[in-house]
């Protein structure tokens, strides 16, 4: 069959707003995907990229409707099929791999039942062979012990395993094209890299077309031939992956690239200020005009068309010739390096934390629990003015440590000492107000951490009243001052959190922490829920506050590049145990602990010329091993039985870089240098 697999022509999708007007979510989208091609759709949240992917299946979420245009899959118009015809195509010739497989698998059905359902509906495999075929599919997505997985329920699998099951389910109908809606978002870096390699291999082997929707340019760079950039419901740019990621002609694509923190760069990413217009608010001009560095009068009055450039790329901009004026690299501020003055801000001594609290029942019966602690043997000293980054996969205990420092989770053993010698009470209720004030916590998701019924003023006034006893005009003035410091301004005081964008909300959360004038601010994945362009702004803000106030941060993130952007020192955690700690530059360079090596290798750079190295399996471990090295089961440089039985020693270099491994540092350096040379 010739012609495109997927032919989207002039599609507009919208919903009816409160005022009764039709508000468009997608505007005049034109898109073709050829046989065997893999197309990436990039955009920030709200850009309409997921809606577009679902529309390709002839599916619209409740409330949305097709306003105009047509979607054809292999010549069949998806919006004029009957329900039966759609049921045949969906999951058959055209399959979807959803964003969050944990929630996309039916919780009450076993994996086997769900997989066999797909086979029964869409394959010619006779019923008697369904189990064998299902096992084969699970093997193809490289799941260990497929037979056992068939009888599991979705919640018994890890996120990576669930995602693989979703891939297997999509392959059951031997599709011509796969739609992938953020398939690796929310997975650990190593798992993400493994899943992406799997998808690449499968698409290549079977000659499948792929439409890959993601906000992650790193993932797109790895799997896509061609990329479409979406903004506020329209395509603003289209080109080959190389064109879009190396030197895009549209200022938005450039801004997006500059906002991504990278491992190889010491600069902070550049924020793209502002936010996209809400559906229906785009006006007559270019929808990007409010955030564009190139904007002129013409951009406000007239909407640019998607025009082809001599290089073959398409861009919706009047001034593509001036695009070079917008930097696409990180020319942001250099992170301040405050020389820690030597004074200790916080000390963790042999800290161990166990999530398992003996139940009332066990306590009555006097039973004790001899389980391995979730977090163990944490010895870290944080100096004043220093930023300590904590990195590790999910389950590595990094957030757990923050909770313990904040007093929300009493440790099972060890000491937390504030400043030189002030021992901190383990439970937050027992801490004096002064200790509470000096340690502040910023949470991952401002939607959960800001009370939706309180105005910004009420949120900020609480710590001011509590710790400083401010009232009346003084209280108001101070609130405005704090808001100014997070670049929001006094006019935000009367607003509710729901009236703010994600980035603004997180700034309020930061402001609330700084209202207490703290010495130590604990940041728990503070940028993970934000779009990259907004993330850059929050990082920049944290950096500026650090410079002005000399605050000490403990910064937790699963994103190695984000941690690198801000941290002076980095600690790498695996299964609640420290593997490596040292100055940021040294931890991110060789020699490194084998686990750090695995993590760094899996990072995806938004650059089509780089490839991740997958050194270890992405097996998820549920609990740390009882003895020996915590990383023994996955370590690519495992020596032998010694790793299983003996806790590895710390090797330390003169400049404070320490690695906990049975290999000597020189051995690691030699091995890793050898690999780099290959």
């Amino acid at each position: 069959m010739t012609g495109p697999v997927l032919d989207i022509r002039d599609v507009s999708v919208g919903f009816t707003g409160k005022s009764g007007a039709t508000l468009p979510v997608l505007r005049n989208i034109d898109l073709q995907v050829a046989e065997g091609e893999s197309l990436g759709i990039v955009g920030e949240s709200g850009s309409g990229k997921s809606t577009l992917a679902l529309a390709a299946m002839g599916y619209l979420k409740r409330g949305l409707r097709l306003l105009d245009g047509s979607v054809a899959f292999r010549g069949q118009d998806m919006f004029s099929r009957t329900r039966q015809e759609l049921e045949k195509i969906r999951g058959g010739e055209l399959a979807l791999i959803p964003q969050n497989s944990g929630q996309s698998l039916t919780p009450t059905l076993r994996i086997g039942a769900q997989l066999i359902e797909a086979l029964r509906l869409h394959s010619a495999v006779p019923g008697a062979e369904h189990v064998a075929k299902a096992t084969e599919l699970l093997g193809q997505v490289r799941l260990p012990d497929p037979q056992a997985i068939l009888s599991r329920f979705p919640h018994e699998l890890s996120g990576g395993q669930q995602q693989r099951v979703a891939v297997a389910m999509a392959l059951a109908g031997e599709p011509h094209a796969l739609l992938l809606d953020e398939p690796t978002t929310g997975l650990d870096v190593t798992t993400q890299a493994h899943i992406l390699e799997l998808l690449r291999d499968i698409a290549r082997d079977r000659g499948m077309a792929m439409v890959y929707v993601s906000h992650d340019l790193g993932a797109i760079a790895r799997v896509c031939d061609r990329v479409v950039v979406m903004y506020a419901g329209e395509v603003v740019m289209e080109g080959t992956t190389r064109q879009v990621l190396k030197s895009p002609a549209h200022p938005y694509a450039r801004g997006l690239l500059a906002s991504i923190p990278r491992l190889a760069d010491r600069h902070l990413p550049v924020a793209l200020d502002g936010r996209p217009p809400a559906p229906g608010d785009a006006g007559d001009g270019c929808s990007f005009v409010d955030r564009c560095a190139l904007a002129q009068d013409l951009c406000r009055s007239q909407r640019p068309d998607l025009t082809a450039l001599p290089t073959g790329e398409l861009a919706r901009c009047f001034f593509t010739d001036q695009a070079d004026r917008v930097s696409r690299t990180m020319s942001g501020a250099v992170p301040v390096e405050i020389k820690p003055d030597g004074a200790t801000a916080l000390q963790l001594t042999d800290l161990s934390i166990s999530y398992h609290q003996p139940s009332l029942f066990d306590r009555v019966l006097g039973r004790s629990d001899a389980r391995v602690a979730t977090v163990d043997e944490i010895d870290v000293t944080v100096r004043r003015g220093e930023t300590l980054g904590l990195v590790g996969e999910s389950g590595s205990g990094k957030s757990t440590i923050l909770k313990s420092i904040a007093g929300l989770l009493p440790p099972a053993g060890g000491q937390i000492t504030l400043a030189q010698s002030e021992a901190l009470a383990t439970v937050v209720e027992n801490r004096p107000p002064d200790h509470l004030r000096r340690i502040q916590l910023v949470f991952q998701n401002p939607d959960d951490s800001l009370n939706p019924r309180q105005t910004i003023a009420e949120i900020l006034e609480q710590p001011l009243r509590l710790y400083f006893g401010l009232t009346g005009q003084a209280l108001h003035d101070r609130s405005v001052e704090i808001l100014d410091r997070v670049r929001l301004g006094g006019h935000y005081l009367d607003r509710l959190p729901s009236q703010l964008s994600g980035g603004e909300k997180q700034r309020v959360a930061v402001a609330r922490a700084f209202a207490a004038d703290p010495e130590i601010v604990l940041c728990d994945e503070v940028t993970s829920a934000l779009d990259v362009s907004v993330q850059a702004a929050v990082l920049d803000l944290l950096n500026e506050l650090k410079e002005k106030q000399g605050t000490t941060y403990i910064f937790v993130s699963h994103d190695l590049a984000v941690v690198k952007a801000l941290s002076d020192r980095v600690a790498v955690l695996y299964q609640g145990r420290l593997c490596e700690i040292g100055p940021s530059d040294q931890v991110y360079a060789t020699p490194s602990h084998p686990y750090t090596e695995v993590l760094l290798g899996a990072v995806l750079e938004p650059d089509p010329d780089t490839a991740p190295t997958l050194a270890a399996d992405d097996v998820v471990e549920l609990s740390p091993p009882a003895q020996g090295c915590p990383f023994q089961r996955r370590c690519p440089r495992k020596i032998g039985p010694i790793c299983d039985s003996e806790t590895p020693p710390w090797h330390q270099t003169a400049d404070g870089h320490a690695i906990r491994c049975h290999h000597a540092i020189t051995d690691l350096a030699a091995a890793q240098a050898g690999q780099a040379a290959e």
Partner: protein
Amino acid sequence: MLRMFLRRLFLGAVTVAIVSIIIFSGVEMLPGDACTAFLEREAKGKLLENCREAQGLNRPAVERYIDWAAGAVQGNLGVSANGQKSISELVGARLGNSLLLAACSLALGVPLAIFLGVVTGLWRDKPIDLTLSTMAIFAMTIPEFVSATVLILLFSVWLGWLPGIVLTPAHAPAAEFFPEILLPVLVLTMVMTAHILRMVRSSVIEVMAGDYVQMATLKGVPYWRIVFRHALPNALLPAINVVALTIAWLLGGVVVIEVVFNYPGLGRMMIDSISDRDLPVVQAIALIVATVYVGVNLSADLLTMIANPRLRTLHMRRK
């Protein structure tokens, strides 16, 4: 799983024990006792003294509680103050009647409520949903005695189809309550259907908008298969607990209906005993109702655990 079950059973027993202490102390704190209730105006001087002696009311409270509790465990709830009859027998008959009323209402109401709940949930905002949901709100908000009276007026006074009042004596066999029981059953069914329907409806709506239903749709699963295999097993899980609460309510909390229809159930006996100041009976009924609450909630939790793989495996792994 078995350990979990035994553990919950134990905790349930502890709850009932604590409740029994509260009930006993409550009754103890009231002025008067079984003898003052029995002797009424003669309750003074020697006569009262003798009665208390005979009933053992002069013994310390702790001792009497232990006696009462030990008896209750063996099924002996003591004797009533009025008439000195065995409470177990008196209450037993009433409990049987209440169970009959509850069973009939549940048999009619639960399937109906779930069916209508699913229908309204699937056809959300369509005329059928709007009609049924509005009716449900009416059934919930109109007091039971009003709807009972209206139904009596309609079915027994105007149409003459059903008897408007129960005249069968309390100890009669279950079969003799028909057709008198039908009107009270109808009223109870209306109220409880409304509650369960609204809960099932919102649960169905939530599940049908969920990611896994969208995924099943985009996997090409036919609509009705999605409804029955993917959505309903999840949507109906919360219904178990609501049904459990309804059962407890039917057994102890439907006094008004029992009074309106003169139905000889547990609730009416409680009210009668209170006005007669028959404290041993009040005490016994309170204990029974509390036990029923604990029992049905325990069964509901266990059922949910069995029906929900998430909870089931959670407890199996925890060893």
